[in-house]
Structure formats: structure tokens, C-alpha cells
């Protein structure tokens, strides 16, 4: 793991810094709104009420948060294992494709079997897609940042290829419209709507459960200890007898599996209950593969803290549409601000370290060490840095 990634994990940004990052982003957003001729106050008010104003919008935010949380949990695992997984997009698509094919192949299975089955299929699909990058890194030395980005591009095109060919809705061919999408998938695989009169469905529960599982995996299991050990120091891990390469692969498989489940939730929890593409890179995923990174970073690469972080960013994405309607500023503004927040959060670590240093320098006493304390050996004072 690079030094700076290590620092990121070691001292994850505290709440003050996170709030500060959002505030700066909000301020910059306000300037952008002004520049685009919109009233920031009106815009942000619309955004907030659109995101968190009533039960319906809260539910929409939670639904938008669902894939972010699943991807974010996977990202936390990968980053903590020292692997920078940028491949959430591709892993979502791989999970969506495999689970869709499963539903197409077994449309008549009862719901209580089929839903777990498509979830497993999605996890396997995403896991394989992540695992490819893992194997490439472990056994061929291919930088995972590059390979996961390339695998994103490849996954989109495989999806386009399959949805224009073998998986296309036969009705589309009959009608001659050839929209690249599957038929409406079997109702047996529909994610059931939760009681309460909102659109909330099973996917939200799955996402929260997955975050808890991710937390237990990372911090409570031997496998998690190995993943984190390899992430912090592959050399020492190898010397302690851990299979470093296998752990790199595992990290990306786990990470991909969580993203793959996000793909399942996006397909089987969607309104159309089908997988569709417009050929573009982020239409189906809603850029969740990237926004999940933002949520995970914001959650300090801790799956449980990623739950509220995802909800916040899900809300922003939902609110952005409300803002677009209210002040006619494109919702892409939020994506731009998300990018800035990533930059702020990673930059803030250094600022935090500086603040900590200043604070401790303030505390240093001018008392010289007395002669009695000159001699102790093996004392606790850390070696001076530098």
C-alpha cells in the first residue's frame, strides 16, 4: 500500500473535516449556481426538500444510497487491503448480467429460492470481474487501478453486446425497434416492496446487511486480519506466513462481490424490472461505481460509517433532480461536487496531521528531561521523525 493510502486508513478523516469538506463543496456549488444565474438558496432548498423532505423522498434517497453502500462496502475492503479498486462500475455490470441471465434461465423458481439465487449470481459475477483484476495484479503484476478501469470499459461493451444480441427482449425484435434491453424479468425475482407505502424494497435491507457483513469480515475475522495485514505491510505479512498474492485476489473478489450485488439490486429493484442500456458508460449504474468510492471515503473506509455516508450522497443525487426542476441547473452539478469532495477528503488528511502536530507542539513543555530520566532504556518515547 502506498504511504499515503496507509495514512488514509490509519487516521480516517474525523467528522469535523468531513463536514468541512461538504461545506466547502456547498460553497463552491453556490458559486456555480450563482454563476449559472440561479439562486443558490432556492436551489439548495429544493435539493434538501427533494432529498429528505418527506417519506417518499427519504425512501428515494435510501434507494439511491443502496448501490452506493454496497459498492462502498466493497471499496472499504479493497482499499484496506491495499488495493485501489476503481472497477465498481464494471463489477456492478458483471453482477447485473449474471443475475439477469440466472433469472432468464430459471423464471419459474419460487421467489424464496430465486431471489437469494440472483443475489448469489450477482455476487459471483462481480466477484469474478474483481477477481480478474486481482489475479492480474497478483500473478502478472498489472497495476489494479489501470486494470479495473479497463475492465469497466470492457464490461459496458459486453453488456451492450449481450443486450443487442443474445439477451435482447424478443418483443423488441418482433416490433423491430431493437431497443437494447431484456424482457421484463420474471416476477418471482422482483425485490418485494417493504411495508410503509414507500418505494423502499428488499435491496435496501440487503445493502445494510451487506455493510454489517463487511464490517464483521474486516474487523472480526481471521480473513479480515489477513486482508488488512497485507494491505498495511505485504512484506511483514509474507514473513508471517500469509499468502500475500491470494489475499490480493481475495480482496478484489470480495470487493467485486459487493458491487455485483449492487448490480442485482439495480436490476431487480428497478421500476422496469429489466436490464437496459443506452450504450453509455454510466446510464445503468448511475455512476454508482464511482460515487460508491466517494461514500466509502466519506465513511472513513469503515463499512458501518459508510451507511450514513451513502445515505447522504444518495440524498444529494435525488435532491439534484429536484434542484434541476426548481432552478434549471443540470443535476450534473452534484457529480462535479462529488469529485471535489473526494479531493477535499483526501487533501484533508494532511491538514489534519498538521493540525495534530501543531496541537501537540503547543503542549510541549520547556522542562528539560531531569537527570533521573536520562538513563532509562527502552523507554516509550518514539524515535524522533525525520
Amino acid at each position, binding site marked *: 500500500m502506498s504511504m499515503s493510502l496507509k495514512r488514509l486508513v490509519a487516521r480516517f478523516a474525523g467528522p469535523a473535516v468531513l463536514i468541512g469538506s461538504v461545506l466547502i463543496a456547498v460553497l463552491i456549488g453556490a458559486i456555480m449556481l450563482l454563476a449559472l444565474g440561479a439562486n443558490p438558496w432556492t436551489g439548495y432548498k429544493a435539493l434538501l426538500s427533494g432529498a429528505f423532505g418527506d417519506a417518499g423522498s427519504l425512501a428515494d434517497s435510501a434507494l439511491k444510497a443502496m448501490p452506493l453502500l454496497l459498492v462502498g462496502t466493497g471499496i472499504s475492503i479493497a482499499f484496506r487491503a491495499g488495493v485501489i479498486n476503481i472497477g465498481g462500475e464494471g463489477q456492478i455490470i458483471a453482477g447485473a448480467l449474471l443475475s439477469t441471465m440466472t433469472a432468464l434461465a430459471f423464471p419459474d423458481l419460487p421467489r424464496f429460492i430465486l431471489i437469494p439465487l440472483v443475489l448469489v449470481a450477482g455476487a459471483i459475477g462481480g466477484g469474478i470481474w474483481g477477481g480478474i483484476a486481482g489475479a492480474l495484479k497478483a500473478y502478472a503484476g498489472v497495476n489494479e487501478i489501470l486494470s479495473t478501469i479497463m475492465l469497466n470499459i470492457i464490461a459496458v461493451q459486453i453488456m451492450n453486446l449481450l443486450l443487442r444480441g443474445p439477451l435482447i427482449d424478443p418483443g423488441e425484435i418482433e416490433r423491430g425497434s431493437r431497443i437494447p434491453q431484456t424482457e421484463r424479468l420474471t416476477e418471482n425475482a422482483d425485490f418485494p416492496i417493504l411495508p410503509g407505502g414507500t418505494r423502499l424494497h428488499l435491496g435496501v435491507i440487503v445493502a445494510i446487511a451487506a455493510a454489517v457483513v463487511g464490517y464483521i469480515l474486516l474487523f472480526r475475522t*481471521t480473513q479480515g486480519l489477513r486482508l488488512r495485514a497485507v494491505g*498495511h*505491510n505485504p512484506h*511483514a505479512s509474507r514473513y508471517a506466513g500469509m499468502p500475500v498474492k491470494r489475499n490480493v485476489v481475495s480482496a478484489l473478489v470480495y470487493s467485486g462481490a459487493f458491487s455485483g450485488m449492487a448490480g442485482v439490486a439495480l436490476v431487480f429493484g428497478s421500476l422496469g424490472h429489466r436490464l437496459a442500456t443506452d450504450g453509455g458508460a454510466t446510464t445503468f449504474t448511475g455512476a454508482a461505481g464511482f460515487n460508491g468510492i466517494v461514500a466509502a471515503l466519506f465513511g472513513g473506509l469503515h463499512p458501518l460509517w459508510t451507511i450514513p455516508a451513502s445515505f447522504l450522497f444518495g440524498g444529494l443525487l435525488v435532491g439534484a433532480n429536484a434542484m434541476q426542476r426548481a432552478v434549471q441547473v443540470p443535476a450534473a452539478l452534484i457529480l462535479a461536487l462529488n469529485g471535489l469532495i473526494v479531493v477535499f477528503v483526501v487533501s484533508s488528511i494532511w491538514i489534519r496531521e498538521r493540525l495534530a502536530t501543531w496541537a501537540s507542539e503547543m503542549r510541549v513543555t520547556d522542562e528539560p528531561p531531569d537527570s533521573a530520566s*536520562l538513563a532509562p*532504556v*527502552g*523507554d516509550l518515547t518514539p*524515535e524522533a521523525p525525520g
Partner: protein
Amino acid sequence: MNDLNKGDVMLEMKGITKRFPGVLANYKVDFDVRSGEVHSLLGENGAGKSTLMKVLYGLNKADEGTLEFLGEAVSISSPSDAIEHGIGMIHQHFMLVPTLTVAENVALGLPPVRRFAQDLDPVKDRIRELSEAYRLHMDPDAYIWQLAVGERQRVEIMKAIYRDVSLLVLDEPTAVLTPAEVDDLFVTLRQMTDNGRGLVFISHKLHEVMNLSDRITVLRSGRVSGHTVPAETSREMLAEMMVGREVLLSPNRTEVEVAEERLVIQDLNVLSDRGHSAVTDFNLSVRSGEVLGVAGVSGNGQRELAEAITGLRPVVSGKVTIGGTDTTSLSPKEVRNVGVSYVPEERMRDGAIGDFTVAENLILLNHDAEPISRRGLLQFNEIDRACSDLVSRFTVKTPSLDTPTSSLSGGNIQKLIIARELSSKPKVLIASQPTRGVDIGAAEYIHEVLMTQRADGVAILLISEDLDEIMGLSDRIAVMYEGELMGVTDRAEATVEALGLLMAGVAEEKV
């Protein structure tokens, strides 16, 4: 260079105080250097030697104190300031760019000869001249990665001479040199002082300090604990000044009955990272209750040897047998299961995970075994119990088990690693540079632990560059040079001179 007479004060540091968070690295330190002398700065790790010199070189900023150089008050806030004033520094780790040539390394940071383009020809010519004058034998077009360690050291010297420094600081310059190379270095250094330069020599090797110095200043816990000159002191007295109490330079040994062969190495061949032969046709055996010391300058295949034994590096040919089991092609984990423990030389790189807590580091080896783990889940009560026990048994000083390991001192991290490695009750212990960079107190303790293990019948392979350590602990001493075994001597028959020759690659029959 300067127009001082030999013996005039060229550098005067007064009342230097430097604080780091939680540490007072230097407190009111006075230090001066005269023209034409070698002034040694002696002290344990963390005593503040490096900090003081980094203040001088502009790498650290002093909180208090003044600096006078060549009679003028100066303020040095960056290496460029230092270089401008004619102060040079040779760092403990070489400051060379391996992918650049000698000439490029020397030219780095110099104002270009022409405005924009780099013309290295005049630089090369000057290097050749100086190389002649100081007998440094240097090819300006050679790449650094092609050079041996001793040659790299000479490039560092060249960088200083080329910049015509008046004052040169050498931070542990002999750590990686053979005794013969050390002698050559000292000749060059003497030539430099004869030309009126002042040198600061930082070391913890007491005999070198006694040999080379005109004056000696000892630091302890950030303060000056004494000034002396070689004629008026001894190694024992210097050690006492460093530690603040009397020190046993060699540990107590008891007679131990040696038993069966525990570790047998036959015709071993191993490659280095670069794919060259690192260990060649190596044969050795270590018995139960015996310490076999492997002496040699670092980089002569010791690391590769240890890694091959522990399964961390593939064996090209030959055989390693441990307790009767052929372990040649086993994985690191399987080798450990046969009963091998390893204390690696690079503590923070290979031995411990800095960002992990003390407890997490202590369970690295057995984290997946009962009772630490059950059905894949970590058992935190068991972990607490086992780790508290280890920490108190091996006197690891830590505020808590949840303290990040990197915040412990070097000596305590080493104790933690040793505690972990010995917790599995090994049959064979491989200890590489077990006391390098740790304070003398922790070193004494570690030596004691090794002697206890020996008494318990563990076969110990001790790899060290420190001849005092090797001769103090070992029952037999093997010398490694360029991957080959130069010879094995019994403790009683070993002399520093003979070992030194072997370490330089001179086989006995040629002597």
C-alpha cells in the same frame, strides 16, 4: 574553500534545542568543529545525533540556538543554504539516484553550465581530476545501480569534494563497508582533513570512533553527556557515557550441551532479486543448543540465505533440512509449522506492521489457530490474555495492547517481534541483525533472551554485521562473502583480524 588555519574553529553550534511532538530531541546542545579535525558525535539511537546534524544541514529547523560558520552567524533553512555555505553531508542511507550515472548524480543540483541544456562534459572532466587526486577510482559514466556498495560510498564523497565543502558530516558511513573498505575510507577522510576541511563523524562503532577521531562528543537523550579525546578514554568509558551506566559489552554465557543437528544446509544455491547468484554452494549445520554466528558485510547473501531457509525465497538447488524434515520446497507457513522462527533484519518492513496494534502484531503468526480464532472469527478475550502474557514476559513497554506499534521505540518493537517469534516455541531460530538500531539496554536484554533460548536447546542461526555481537554470542562463527561460505571457526580460535580478512573475501590459505 576557506582561509582558516588548521585548528581554527569553523563551526560553532550553541544552545541548539529541537522539539518533536512528545520528544525533546536536542536540548541546549553546544557543538563545534575546527578546521582539519575529525570530531566524532557518539550516542545511541534516538540520542539526537541525527537531529543535530539535520539542523546543521537545514533539514530540521531548530527551535532555539545559534549557528556560527566561518566566523559569521548563519541561518540554514534548507540543504541548498548548507551547500551554499560549504557544508556537505553524507547520509546514513546513500542519497544517490540509482538510475542516473555518477556524473549526473554529481551534477544534480548544480547550476547548469549552459543556461538550459545540461552539458555534462566539464563535470566528467572534473570528476576524473578529483578522482585522480583522491584516488577514488571512478568512472563518471557508470550508472549507480552498477556500482558496489563501497563504490557508491565514494560517489558520495565525490559529491562533497566536487562541491568543495569546508565541512563534511558523515552519518554512520561505515555501516555497510568491509573492514578493508573502512580503512580506505579513513585514508580518504584523512586526506580531506589534511586539506583543512573539518569532518563530523557520526557512529556507534566505538573502535572506529577511537581510531579516527581528534575529539569526541557524546550525546544522551538529546543532551551532551560528555566531551573527550581518544587518548583519555576507552571503549568501556564511551559506552558508559552513552548509556549513563555501566554496560556489559558481551553477555554472560553458560556451558550448554550441544545435541542433534537441527538445521542442515546442503549445497544450497539461491538467486537475488535481480536474478544473480546470491548464495552459492552453501553448506552449514546448526545443532541444538548452539549459536552459529554468520559474520559478513551486509549484502553478501545473508538475507537471501535466511529467506531461503524460511521458505520466503525459492531454492535453485540444494537442500534444507530442519529437524529431519526436508523443507526445501515448503511454503513460509509450512516451514514455520516445522518449528522455525525468524527475526528479520528489516524490522519495520518485514517484522512488524507499523499501523497494526501491538496485539494484532503479536497474533500475526497464530491468528488463524485455536484458541485465537474459532470458526474464522477472532476471539478477542483470548487475544487479550495471550498478548498481555507475552508483553509482560518479554518486558515490551507499551501503554496498551491497542497502541499502534509504530509509536513504540525500536527496542520495544524488536522485543515485540522476538516475543511473537518465540511464542511458538521454535526448534530453530534465525535472527538477523537482532540488535541493529536498538538502544544498548534493549540489546543487552535481547542477547540475554538468545542465551536463554540456547540453554533451552534451540538451534540459533545468528546473522550479524556486528563482529562484537557475533564474537560475544556464537559458539561457532561462519563468514559469508559474495554468497559463499569462507570458513567456519570455533569461538575460541576466532580473531577480529582473521574474520575481517575472510569478510573481505581473502581465503585463509592465501594469507
